[in-house]
């Protein structure tokens, strides 16, 4: 026995009391346990698939989906494939997320600044807004907005503002640029992209000169002017060369006996309710983040800025905010991710987002495959948002400037 113990000991410590041995054994055991559990799940799923004759695999992707999708920003018809329908649905989610993020940021910063106002009434109004909107489930808010939109008058009796904006229970129709000539439109968009890059170059060059020499230069004005003039010249040249401009403004117009609106862009009721709900809800969280960020900047910074003669607005814009951004950006990224994920509630109010379409797809396609695809899609979106956010975060950190 003592010999056996000696083999199992290291420096006089038996193996079952050796910390490293315990750690390794427990790790391997837990790893095996998880692997076995996952394998058991897959075996069960496999059995269920065989026994209950459930379809599996990804072969369905090239089949026709044959189900209409309520709203779509990409062209879509029922004879398109499952894969394309999935992309269309993902685009719906992405579009809502991008618009929502932009609007929620603007509203959130506004409310956050109001919350810190020295004006008692405005500060309290912002507080009431924040406390109300972030403490009520988004779903309840979405239903509220949705039923408000539904309660709008029908199309023929809807509100019309100067024959351009139509508001009714089918949605809100607004004038929208429409492509006049595809080739010209692409050419102009490319030129415009180049113009923006050039404008940015002018701006950063002038800013650098101002920083190095002290010569005042209206860098922003010059940058915008450069971009705008190139864009305008290109527009004129294209209009003169071809027949008509690259884009025309398409006006919404009621058509036929039911007064259905065609032309322009019609944002359907579900989408409007979803946007209002997502934006007001997320803005209440962003407002608190903005407040925390601004308050994290030392009072001395603001006082010094005021002492050298900057105005209150200029202090906020040029001194407080750039410093607050370092605190604001990380939690802001997670709010953007939350907004993207919260857009999956869209199904409840009839907007065809990714989750909603995928849910319908599971009726005719294997659920396991759909689940894998939807996980991958959301994870990809999350990672992209985090990546962009983290790059920006690196840009504004202390060592970057």
């Amino acid at each position, binding site marked *: 026995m003592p010999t056996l113990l000696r083999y199992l000991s290291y420096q006089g410590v038996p193996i079952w009391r050796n910390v490293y041995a315990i750690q390794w054994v427990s790790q*391997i055991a*837990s790893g095996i346990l998880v692997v076995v559990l996952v394998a058991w799940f897959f075996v069960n799923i496999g059995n269920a698939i065989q026994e209950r004759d459930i379809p599996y695999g990804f072969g369905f992707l090239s089949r026709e989906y044959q189900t209409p999708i309520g709203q779509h920003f990409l062209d879509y018809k029922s004879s398109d494939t499952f894969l394309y329908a999935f992309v269309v649905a993902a685009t719906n989610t992405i579009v809502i997320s991008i618009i929502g993020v932009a609007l929620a940021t603007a509203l959130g910063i506004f409310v956050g600044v109001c919350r810190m106002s020295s004006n008692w009434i*405005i500060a309290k*109004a912002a507080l009431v807004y924040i406390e109300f909107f972030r403490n009520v489930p988004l779903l309840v*808010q979405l239903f509220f907005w949705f*039923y408000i939109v539904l309660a709008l008058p029908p199309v023929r009796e809807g509100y019309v503002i100067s024959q351009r904006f139509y508001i009714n229970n089918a949605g809100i129709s607004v004038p929208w640029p429409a492509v006049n000539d595809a080739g010209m439109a692409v050419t102009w968009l490319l030129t415009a992209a180049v113009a923006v890059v050039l404008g940015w170059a002018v701006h950063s060059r002038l800013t650098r000169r101002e920083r190095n020499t002290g010569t005042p230069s209206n860098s922003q004005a010059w940058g915008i002017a450069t971009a705008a003039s190139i864009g305008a010249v290109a527009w004129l040249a294209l209009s003169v060369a071809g027949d008509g401009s690259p884009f025309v403004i398409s006006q919404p117009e009621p058509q036929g006996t039911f007064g259905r609106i065609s032309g322009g862009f019609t944002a359907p009721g579900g989408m409007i309710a979803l946007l209002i709900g997502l934006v007001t809800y997320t803005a209440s969280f962003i407002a608190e983040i903005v407040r925390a960020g601004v308050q994290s900047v030392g009072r001395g910074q603001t006082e010094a800025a005021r002492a050298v003669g900057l105005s209150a607005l200029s202090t906020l814009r040029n001194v407080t905010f750039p410093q607050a951004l370092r605190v604001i950006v990380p939690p802001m990224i997670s709010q953007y991710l939350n907004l993207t*994920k919260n857009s999956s509630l869209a199904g409840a109010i009839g907007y065809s987002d990714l989750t909603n379409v995928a849910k319908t797809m599971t009726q005719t396609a294997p659920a396991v495959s759909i689940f894998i695809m*939807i996980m991958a899609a959301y994870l990809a979106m999350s990672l992209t948002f985090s990546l962009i956010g983290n790059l920006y975060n690196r840009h504004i950190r202390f060592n970057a400037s």
Partner: protein
Amino acid sequence: MLTDSNTMASPVLPPPRSETGVVGRMRANLFNSRFNSAMTVLAVIVIALALWFGLGWILVDADWTVISTLGGRMIIGQYNIEAACPGQNCFWRPQAGLLLVTLVLGMAWQVAGGGVTKRIALAVAGVAAAFAFLPYAFSQMGLDVRLLLLANLPALAVGWSLARYTKLGTASWTAILSVTAFVLTLVLLRGIPGVPFLQPVSVIFWGGIMLNLMLAVAGIGLSFPIGIALALGRRSELQVLKLLCIVFIETFRGVPLITLLFMSQVLVPLAFPEDFPQNSLMRAAIVITLFSSAYMAENIRGGLQSLHPGQAEAARALGLPGWQTMLFISLPQAIRNVIPPIVGQFISLFKDTSLVYIIGMLDVVEISRAFIQGNPEFLANAKELFIFLALVFWVFTYGMSYVSRRVEQHLGVGER
């Protein structure tokens, strides 16, 4: 002499009238600049208009009968319909559950010695008892229902006395009994096959705010310890464990809860053998708990990161073993530092319980929506219903953040 008379002649004057009192405060806060004055006037006009039209709508135009028509279904869902409980009246079972809760709250009040616990206990029992005097919907609420609601007040007193005059008046007994009360409530609601007055009620009939609260309580109670375990796992030096925790946390945080809930209905039943005991509510509760614990883990990890390493080093230097250092030194401080985000996570868990609509459970939101859809004559009153729901949720969530602020005050966060 001159200096003397100077100092003598200047007694401390009170500040000018324009700087003090209501006028002074208004000048300092509302009219301290031209821009601010304009903003004040504008805000007052907007608020006055909003109040005028808002109150006018609430008192005159709005039709609140939709709420009394839905009535008890908002509280217990379809629990008491004929299909759920054939041949019996099962209304008393959720009520008995509520009585158990007030009993435990009474104990907690005595054990905690007043403060915020007392207010919660009084509020719960008081609101329950006040429901007994609701004037409308007499037809729905019989005398038996009202008496059981009133019984919450004596139940509170019984709980208080139990804690005061028996040996049960300790924190650990209260904790054990509250868990017991929750499990008993579940058993009461689910029923026991074979017992004549406790015939089983399928979980598909559970609903209303009762369902939201039970999912939230179970989720909060379980996701907290799981979250701590995941946070410790993620900070562990054991690479396999760490990797497993990271994969778990990031997967659950990357996907919307609604997608997970939906898939729990489609996929999870396949992953277990057919005779494995499970039901949709259980799966939903597990998914909500796991989802929340992934977020909880990140909050707690943040708290652990905010601790100075000296704390743990000092504890180790004093000879505490690793697990005691974690349990008695690091974790208490870490959790204290992140009370606001943790409570924020509890609040969002409670709000997220409304997502169970995706699996066909009729929680308070879904039963309202289904009611509106089934009764188009109330379509125009959907606003009123959802405003009411918003207020109900707001009361609970605001209560939670109020409690968290009081707890923080009690623990002296930011003072030490």
